[in-house]
């Protein structure tokens, strides 16, 4: 490979002294959670709460996706596969077992997630035999296999006619809210899982695979098993997102269940926020997921947000390849370093201040690989 590849093999974990103060981090986290919880109580307009539901679905899916793709560095562009499996599981289970689509509907969430996770094991075992670009391309191809299967297996999926889901039994006055809160709860579980993975030995193995898979393997990381487990975990959450989406929309169609633009959406959100960070993808989902629905409601046609997505993704990759969160973190570290250098009490002579090259080097080496 070319020499440029060497530059991304740097550790992401920064020294603790560079991190934001604990109180600031916990405070802002609490603030965001509180804002998300009261959001539908403040904005009761159904149009706005429906935007909120989509944001929650994306939040859940992206947080799940990030557990595999963000930490392992294997960019999966076919997770619409599991989104679709989740949707079809939900549709088939409700129609087969005559579930009356009341609150029981949400009991299907873990079931649909488990089905997606189980499906991910053989699929991942096959896909993870290859790396890099071949892996990306194969994930897309496998997603299209499933789309074709959904079109062709008419007796199971209804083919291009799609499937209808029963209408929820609760009052139309608060139609969106149950979907919103179940999405928020599931997303919270996904984020806690992501946080736990990040701190565990298992997660360390994933990060090692991202930085240098062959070396990780030689150091005793069971690379295949680690990747496969992460792949399945991510599929569970993306599948669960599908099981919220399907009853919310009320129908399932092959081209919307296995939708390539959903793959792009996940990647755009994760890259915007900061791939491989804990809260970056979540932030990206909240911002872009809401924007996407806003554009859809404002301009109607799907083509407008394809253009917006495409432009946005190009700009993000071009100008901010590390994403928002790592860039802000880098700025913060730069500022901390700068302040430390300019405070006389630390004993650093003031004439060392012109050495501005140092903090900049730190910035270049932080943020990890894409």
């Amino acid at each position: 490979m070319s020499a440029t590849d060497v530059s991304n093999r740097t550790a992401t974990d920064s020294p603790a002294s560079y991190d934001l103060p604990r109180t600031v981090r916990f405070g802002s986290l609490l603030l965001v959670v509180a804002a998300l919880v009261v959001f539908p109580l403040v904005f009761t307009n159904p149009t706005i709460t429906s935007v909120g539901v989509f944001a929650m679905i994306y939040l859940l899916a992206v947080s799940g996706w990030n557990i595999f793709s963000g930490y392992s560095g294997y960019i999966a562009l076919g997770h619409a596969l599991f989104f679709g499996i989740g949707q079809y599981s939900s549709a088939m289970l409700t129609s087969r077992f005559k579930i009356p689509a009341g609150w029981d509907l949400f009991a299907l969430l873990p079931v649909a997630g488990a089905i997606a996770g189980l499906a991910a094991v053989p699929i991942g075992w096959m896909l993870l035999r290859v790396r890099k670009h071949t892996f990306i391309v194969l994930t897309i191809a496998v997603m299209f296999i499933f789309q074709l299967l959904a079109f062709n297996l008419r007796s199971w999926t209804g083919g291009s006619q799609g499937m209808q889901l029963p209408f929820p039994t609760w009052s139309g006055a608060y139609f969106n809210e149950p979907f919103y809160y179940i999405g928020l709860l599931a997303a919270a579980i996904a984020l806690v899982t992501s946080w736990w993975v990040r701190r565990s030995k298992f997660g360390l193995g994933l990060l090692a695979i991202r930085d240098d898979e062959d070396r990780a393997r030689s150091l005793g990381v069971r690379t295949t098993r680690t990747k496969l487990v992460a792949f399945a975990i991510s599929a569970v959450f993306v599948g669960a997102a599908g099981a919220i989406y399907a009853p919310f929309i009320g129908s399932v169609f092959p081209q919307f269940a296995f939708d390539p633009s959903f793959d792009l959406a996940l990647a755009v959100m994760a890259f915007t926020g900061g791939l491989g960070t804990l809260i970056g993808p979540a932030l990206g989902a909240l911002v872009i997921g809401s924007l996407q629905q806003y554009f859809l409601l404002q301009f109607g046609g799907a083509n407008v947000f394809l253009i917006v997505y495409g432009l946005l993704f190009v700009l993000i990759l071009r100008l901010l390849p590390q994403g928002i969160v790592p860039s802000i973190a880098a700025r913060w570290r730069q500022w901390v370093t700068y302040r430390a250098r300019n405070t006389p009490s630390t004993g650093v002579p003031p004439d060392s201040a012109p050495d501005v090259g140092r903090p900049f080097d730190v910035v270049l080496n932080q943020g990890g690989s894409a």
Partner: protein
Amino acid sequence: MLIAQAIIDGILVGGFYALMAAGLTLVFGVMDIVNFAQGALVVLGAYLSYALSVHLNIDPFLSLLITVPATSLLGVAIYWVLIKPIKRDRVVMSLLVMFAVATLIEGILDWVFKSNLVQVHASYVNKSFQLGRLNFPAIYLYAFALSVGLLALLYTLIYRSRFGRSLRASMQNPVAARMVGINTDRVSAITLGIGIGLAAAGGMVFGTTNAFNAASSYDLISRLLVIVILGGFGSISGALVAALLMLVIQDVVAVVWSPVWGQTTFYLVLVVVLLLRPQGLFGRRAVRAQ
């Protein structure tokens, strides 16, 4: 007899798939870029030929004289503006950039031309020649001749020209190529231009033989990627063989079993081959040992 007809159809259609796949694999060979926008660019080429034939009454084959240079220039521009500035993790980042470009093109085409299915028309589109009980549609024969001609031209360019020598040097070892004075950036830009020009040529054929809209690009790119992976990334001859093989298999399955399963076999063959031989049928570089 039906099977013989299916094999002939597969070979004729495989010819222009080979053309589009050659552009894709060439670009990968030279600069390690998976041009995910190839499918969208094929559709762009089809729409350009369509617009020229509807508004200016230009024959689709003649329209290539306009669409191929225009899209080639677009390719050169994409290289300088989007690909060259990528500093780290080029393979993955460039794939994502091209994915974004594909979405952008799809969105713009859908916005300009709406999502109705259209087809490029010419007087000879529905004519065909008979040979015994076999049927040779005229458009497929012309398209096959065009593909063979362009592939021969590509071969001459790569193996019999000064530019081709620089190109092959950049393919084999970019650093050494730069050391002996080859401007690898220029070679890469021109190669991307050629690859995308081939996509536009393939797009004209695609547009005359299929009803299409902007969303057709996904189907195209997944087929092209299957062909290129099977042939082994970066191997042009591999792409040619894989294109003919896959299209023949698809058409035979469509006749023997049913058309809806023809396309699924396409992907199933990919899965089986990759399980047994992850580097593709003719892969030169081992994908696993990077």
